[in-house]
C-alpha cells in the first residue's frame, strides 16, 4: 500500500485546519478580538485595511472584520453540524439502511420520493421555502423568545432553522443512495445470510452486520458532501436569502467584498472571508479524498 507522503501530509493539514475552524466556531466569543456587531460610522474607522487595532481591517460599517470572520465560522459550524446530524445521519443513513435492507415497497417508496425531491430544482426550492417563511420569521422568533429559554438568540435560531429546513430535505438523497447500494450488496453476503438463517432479528442484522459495512462509504460520502452543504449556506447567504446581517456569515461577508472594483480598492473585504472559506472547502475535499484511499478496497470505489 503505497501512500505518497505528500497526500498524507496534505490531508493531515486539512484535518488540523478543520479542527481550528470548528474550534473557532464553537468558542467564537472567546476567540474573537472584538464585538462583531459594533459599528463605528466615521470616515477614519470604516473600510480600513489591516492594522494593529484591527487585524483584518474593518468593513463598511466600521465593524471589526476579524471578529466577523470568527463569528462567521460559528455560523458555518452550526449549520454543517445540524444538517449533518439531521440530514445525513438520521435521514440519509436511516433511510438508506431501510431501503437497502428491507427492499420491496419500502425501498420503492423511499427511492421514488428521493427522485421526486431530487428532480426539483434545489436552489429554486430552497429559495421558495426561505422566501415563504421570511414573512413569518418575526412571529416565530417572538414566540420562541417568549416561551422558551432561547431569549435573545431566538431570532438567530429561527433564521437558522429556516435555512436548515430548506436544506435538509435535499441533503439526504445522496447519502441514502450510497448507503442503499452498499446495503443491497452486503445483504447478499454469506455472513448476513447466515445470521438471518440462525434467527437473528432484523434490528440485530442491520446494526451488527449491515451498518458496519456501509459506514466506510457513508463516511466518504458525507465528507465529500460537507463542502456542498456548507456551500449551499454560503450561496444562500450571498444571495441574501440565508443568514443576513447583522449576523455574520461567510456568504454575506463575501457579497460585501465581491465586485472587481471593490476588489481593487478594498481587497481585504473579499480576501478576509474568502480565504478561510476556500480553505474550509479545500480541507473537506482533501479529507474526503484521503478517506476514499483509506476506506475503499484496492483504491476502487463505486460512484
Amino acid at each position: 500500500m503505497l501512500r505518497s507522503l505528500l497526500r498524507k501530509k496534505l490531508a493531515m493539514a486539512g484535518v488540523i485546519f478543520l479542527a481550528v475552524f470548528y474550534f473557532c466556531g464553537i468558542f467564537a466569543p472567546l476567540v474573537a478580538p472584538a464585538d462583531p456587531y459594533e459599528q463605528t460610522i466615521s470616515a477614519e474607522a470604516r473600510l480600513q485595511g489591516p492594522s494593529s487595532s484591527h487585524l483584518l481591517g474593518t468593513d463598511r460599517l466600521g465593524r471589526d472584520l476579524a471578529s466577523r470572520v470568527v463569528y462567521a465560522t460559528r455560523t458555518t459550524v452550526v449549520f454543517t453540524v445540524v444538517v449533518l446530524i439531521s440530514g445525513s445521519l438520521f435521514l440519509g443513513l436511516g433511510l438508506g439502511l431501510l431501503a437497502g435492507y428491507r427492499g420491496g415497497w419500502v425501498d420503492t417508496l423511499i427511492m421514488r420520493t428521493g427522485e421526486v425531491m431530487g428532480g426539483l430544482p434545489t436552489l429554486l426550492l430552497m429559495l421558495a421555502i426561505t422566501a415563504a417563511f421570511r414573512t413569518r420569521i418575526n412571529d416565530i422568533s417572538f414566540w420562541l423568545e417568549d416561551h422558551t429559554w432561547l431569549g435573545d438568540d431566538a431570532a438567530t435560531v429561527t433564521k437558522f432553522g429556516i435555512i436548515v429546513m430548506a436544506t435538509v430535505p435535499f441533503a439526504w438523497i445522496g447519502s441514502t443512495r450510497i448507503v442503499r447500494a452498499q446495503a443491497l450488496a452486503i445483504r447478499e453476503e454469506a455472513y448476513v445470510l447466515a445470521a438471518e438463517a440462525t434467527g437473528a432479528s432484523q434490528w440485530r442484522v442491520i446494526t451488527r452486520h449491515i451498518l458496519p459495512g456501509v459506514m466506510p462509504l457513508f463516511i466518504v460520502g458525507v465528507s465529500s458532501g460537507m463542502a456542498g452543504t456548507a456551500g449551499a449556506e454560503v450561496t444562500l447567504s450571498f444571495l441574501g436569502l440565508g443568514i443576513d446581517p447583522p449576523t455574520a456569515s461567510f456568504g454575506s461577508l463575501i457579497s460585501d467584498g465581491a465586485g472587481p472594483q471593490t476588489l481593487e480598492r478594498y481587497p481585504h473585504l473579499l480576501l478576509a472571508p474568502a480565504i478561510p472559506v476556500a480553505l474550509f472547502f479545500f480541507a473537506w475535499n482533501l479529507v474526503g479524498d484521503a478517506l476514499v484511499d483509506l476506506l475503499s478496497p484496492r483504491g476502487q470505489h463505486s460512484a
Partner: protein
Amino acid sequence: MGPGLLGYTVRRLLWAVPVLFIISVVVFYMLRLAPGDPVDAILGQRFQEDQAAILRKKYGYDQPVHIQYLKYIQNLAKGDLGVSTRHQQFTVSEVIIPKIWVSTRLGFIAIVISFTLGTAAGVYAALARGTFLDPLTISFWLAVDAIPVFVAAPALMWLFALKLDLVGLGWRGFASANIILPILVLSLPGTAGIARFVRASVLGVLQEDYVRTARAKGLPERTVVLTHIARNALLPLITVIGLALPGVAGGSLVVEQLFGIPGIGREGFDAVLAPDFDVILALVLFGSFLFVMANIAIDLLYAVIDPRVRVGAARG
C-alpha cells in the same frame, strides 16, 4: 438485457407518470397557497382592489384551485405553457425556451471541458502513482474546486477584462470571446470530481489481470493505456456524467447573474421571487422530467454493471 431487466425498465417508466403528476400537483398547490401573489407584483404600489379583481379574473386566479389545475393540464396537453406574469409581453415558452437553450449549450460545453480535463488529469495522476505528482494533481484540482464561484469570478473579471483587456464582459453570444470567463468558471470546479473518479477507476483497472497480461505480452505501453485501461476505466464515468447532464439544463444562477447571461438559472430565480407561477411550474416539470429519465437510465446502468445490485433488486 434479460427479461427481468426489461420488465424493470418498463415498470420504472410507468412510475414516472404518477411521479410527475404528484410533483405538478404539489407545486401547483404550493404556489397558490404560498404568501406570494403575482397580481400584487404586477400592480405594485399603485394597487387598487377592483383592478386586482380584474387581473385575477384574467389569469384565472379567482377560480378554485382544482379548476385552475384542470385548466392548466388542458392547456399543457395543447402545448400551451401559460403566460408569464413577469414578462407580460411573452408566453412562458417564448421566455424559457431560448434561455434553456443558452444554459444547456453553456453547461454542455463546460461539461465537455470538465470531462476532458478531468479524464486527462485522472489518468495522469493514476499513471503517476507513487510520485508526488499524483497527489499534487488531485490536490490542485481540489483547490480549484474549493474556490467559491462568486469569489473567482470577480477576480477573473478584474484580471482578464480590466487589467489585461483580453475579453469583454457583456453577453455577446457564443461566437464571441466573452464566453471564456463564464465557461472557465463553470467548468474548472467540476474537474476535481471527475479527476478523482477517473484516477480511482484507472487504478482499479491497472491491477486487473488483463492489464498485466497485456504488459507481459510485450504490447507497447501506449496500446495498453489506450485500449485496455481507458476503455474499462471510463465506462463508470458515464454514470457520473449522466447524473450531471440534467443539471446542465437548469443553468447556474450565480454565474449567470455575475456575467449577465440570459440563462434559465436567473430566470428561475427571478420567477420564484416574483412569483411567476407558470414559469416556475414549467421549469419544475421540465427539470423533474429530465431527472426522472436520468435516474432510470443510471439505475439501469448500475444493474448492468454490478450483478449484485441486479440480484438484490429482483429479490426486493
